[in-house]
Each structure stands twice: as structure tokens, then as C-alpha cells.
């Protein structure tokens, strides 16, 4: 196993506000890492730094062995990293199939036919084969998020980033999305997941990182962190969400 993401001493500022202070995280290939912590702790920002949706002000991030600040072709780089958003961000002006095939066809990753074939396989995987030709507006939240995951997977990413994928969902739809993510983890996908689903983190994560106020307060296996939290802040957080 080798480090697929290596983030060292990351600093991120929004104006004068320092949201990440000296963050260092390493993710191995095939590892599932969950980021937990109170809102505003910098989890999502950290995630967005990993594919350069945000630029960092200090430290270095290496992804797949490359220093990402030095990357010229940021679009080619981003195509290797799938990202799933809290609010799905499906394109309302394209059908489900259109959402999935738009990027690979535009970027000439596959020919159209191949892209459609792959999309159909992925839709089967996420259990939405019958929704192939509908428009996002007709889908439920859970279905939208499953399409969003399939859309990200269509690009054959080496890493998947999840930014609170279930936070905007009605409770009864959380399960279907987590099931898809669980399956993905079992297939060996490298995943970094910002989540409030402690159950998911406990079951699926190889490692859990507890962040607060831009720092990593504590990290360890789910068992270490959930059953024997060492810091007071982590204990307080866990007791507040459970």
C-alpha cells in the first residue's frame, strides 16, 4: 500500500479567517477515511482543497504522487477525483444519462456509445436503471444522490470525495445512499468522506479523523475513536451526536 493522498501542514484562509491550521493527512490506496467534527470545523474545506476547488495558502498536497499546486492541467487532474456534494448538484438541463455522459464525452475520455454502456452498468449498480432517461427534477433526494455518485464514477476516478452526502436527505433516504457507498468501499475505492453519519463511519471507515476549529484533534481506527476517545473535545462531540 502506498500513500495516494499526502497533505502536509495545510493552511487555508478565507480573508483573515484561518479555517485550516497545519492540517496533515495521509490516505493510503483503498483506504476509507471519514472526517467528523462540528460544523465550521474545516472538514468540507479540507476536502475541497484536495481537488483544488479551493487553493491553499500553506503546506503541500500530493495526490497520486503529484504536487497539486504545481499541476498545470487542473481539469485532467480533477477527472481522476470524483466528488459528491451535499446538494447533489445534478445538471437540471440534462437527463440522468446526459448528466453521466456529459463529462466523459466532452473530454473525449470515451466515445459516446462506450460512455452510455458504462453509464447503464453504473445505473444498474446504484439501482436506478429505470431512471436512465428522466430529468433530475423528477427524482427523490436519495435517487439524485445515487445518480451523482454514479456520475462521478463514470469518469473512472481513482479517489472519491464525499462532502456530507446524506446531510440534505430525508432520513428514510439516507440508507439507500450509504448502501451504495458501502458497496463502493468494499470494491476497494479510496474514499474520503465528510459525514455526520457516525454509524457509517464506525462500520465502513478504516480511519476516522475528528476535526475541530481547523485542527485535527484526534484520529484513529473507528474502534479507538468511538469507543476510547482520548480528548475531551472528541468525547463531548461524540456524546452530543449520539
Amino acid at each position, binding site marked *: 500500500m502506498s500513500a495516494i493522498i499526502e497533505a502536509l501542514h495545510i493552511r487555508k484562509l478565507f480573508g483573515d479567517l484561518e479555517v485550516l491550521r497545519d492540517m496533515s493527512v495521509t490516505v493510503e490506496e483503498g483506504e476509507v477515511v471519514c472526517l467528523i467534527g462540528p460544523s465550521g470545523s474545516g472538514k468540507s474545506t479540507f476536502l475541497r482543497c484536495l481537488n483544488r476547488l479551493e487553493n491553499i495558502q500553506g503546506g503541500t498536497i500530493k495526490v497520486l504522487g503529484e504536487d497539486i499546486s504545481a499541476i498545470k492541467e487542473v481539469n485532467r487532474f480533477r477527472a481522476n477525483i470524483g466528488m459528491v456534494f451535499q446538494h447533489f448538484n445534478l445538471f437540471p438541463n440534462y437527463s440522468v444519462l446526459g448528466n453521466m455522459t456529459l*463529462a466523459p464525452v466532452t473530454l473525449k475520455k470515451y466515445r459516446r456509445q462506450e460512455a452510455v454502456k458504462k453509464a447503464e452498468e453504473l445505473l444498474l449498480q446504484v439501482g436506478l436503471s429505470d431512471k436512465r432517461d428522466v430529468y433530475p427534477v423528477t427524482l427523490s433526494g436519495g435517487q439524485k444522490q445515487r445518480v451523482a455518485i454514479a456520475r462521478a464514477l463514470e469518469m473512472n476516478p481513482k479517489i472519491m470525495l464525499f462532502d456530507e452526502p446524506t446531510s440534505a436527505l430525508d432520513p428514510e433516504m439516507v440508507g439507500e445512499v450509504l448502501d451504495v457507498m458501502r458497496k463502493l468501499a468494499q470494491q476497494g475505492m479510496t474514499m474520503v468522506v465528510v459525514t455526520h453519519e457516525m454509524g457509517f463511519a464506525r462500520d465502513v471507515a478504516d480511519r476516522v479523523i475528528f476535526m475541530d476549529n481547523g485542527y485535527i484533534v484526534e484520529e484513529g481506527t473507528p474502534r479507538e475513536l468511538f469507543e476510547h476517545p482520548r480528548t475531551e473535545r472528541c468525547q463531548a462531540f461524540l456524546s452530543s451526536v449520539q
Partner: protein
Amino acid sequence: MLDYFSDCWKYLPSLLGGLKLTLIIAVVGIALAIVLGILLCAFSISGIFVLEKIAGIYITVVRGIPLMILALFMYFGVIKNSLDLLPSAIIILAINASAYMAEIFRAGIQAIDFGQTEAARSLGLSYFQAMYKIILPQAFKIMIPSLMNQFISSLKDTAILSAISVNELTMTAKVIIARNYNAFELYSYAAIIYLIVIALLTYLSKRVERKLSYDKR
């Protein structure tokens, strides 16, 4: 009263001639305004300070000046005899409308959730690909009613260009009135012609809007 309008057919050819000029100026002027507006909008969302300032000043100045004054200033003060009347009229209308167009485009683009751009970029699309494939089609749909409004209002604004002797529909009516003094009659015809054209345009824009709708499928 019926008798009063019996001369209608006598004036129709001249009035339709005026309408033709009105439509040419409005259509070509708006087309030009769209191009200019896109450019200005690109400037104003470019994130480049100088370009943003240029667009900002242009939009403030043009929107702040009544079309009548813009027309007189441009035609008598700037263009002088370097251009014929028709191209001058088109350019003046285009300058006026472009400022509003730029704002319509900007508002339309900014109305699209930023998450759309982020999702597109995270899939590896470039800024322009994201704009072209994702943002603009959605923004355009939002913009249609405002664009149509602007078109209608520019169409009516052509009447102001009579100040620089453009013989469009209103001017045609005024010139006939200047000879026969049947103000009520002639202005009624002109109003009805405007009304018919604008009703047609409104109907057309509703059709386009419905056609572009993806919400109902």
C-alpha cells in the same frame, strides 16, 4: 366614429413602411446589443479588476442617460456624417440596450447555483466547457422573459430615434399628422400596429420558453 377610421387603408402603406424600419432597427440593434452585452457580461464576471471596472462604468453611464440624449449626443456629437442614418440608429439602440443586456446576462448567470459550476469542474470540465454546457443553457432559460422584455422595450424605444429623423413607425404617424392633424386617428393606427407586433413577440417568447422547459418532462 367608423367613418373616422375609414382612411385607415390610405395610410397603411406608409405606416407599414415605418414599421419595417422599426423592426429592422430593433432586430439588428438587439442582435448587436446581445453580442455587446455578452462581452460586457464576460468583462463584469471576469474577476479581472480593470475589465470589471470598464464594464461597470459603461453600464452605469449608458443606463444613466436617457435614450433621447444618447441619440442626440451620438448622432450630432460623435457620429456626425461618418455614418448613414440607419446604421447610426442601429448602433445607438444597440449601445443603449447592451447595458441592459449585460445586466440581464449577469443576473441570469449569477442566478445559477454555484454548485453547478463546482460539480462541472470537479468532473474535469474547463471553465468554458462548464459555462457553455451547464451554466449558460440554464441561465438562458431564466433570461428569456427579461430578454423578451428588453426586446419589446427596445422596439418601442425606436420611437425615440425620431429625434434624429429616423422615419420609423411613430415618426411616420407624426409626419402624417403634421399634414392632416388627425392625431387621434393616426396614433390609434400606430398603437394598434405596435400592439399587434408586440403581442406576436410575446406569444413567440412563451412558445420558446415552454419548449426549453425541462421541468415538466
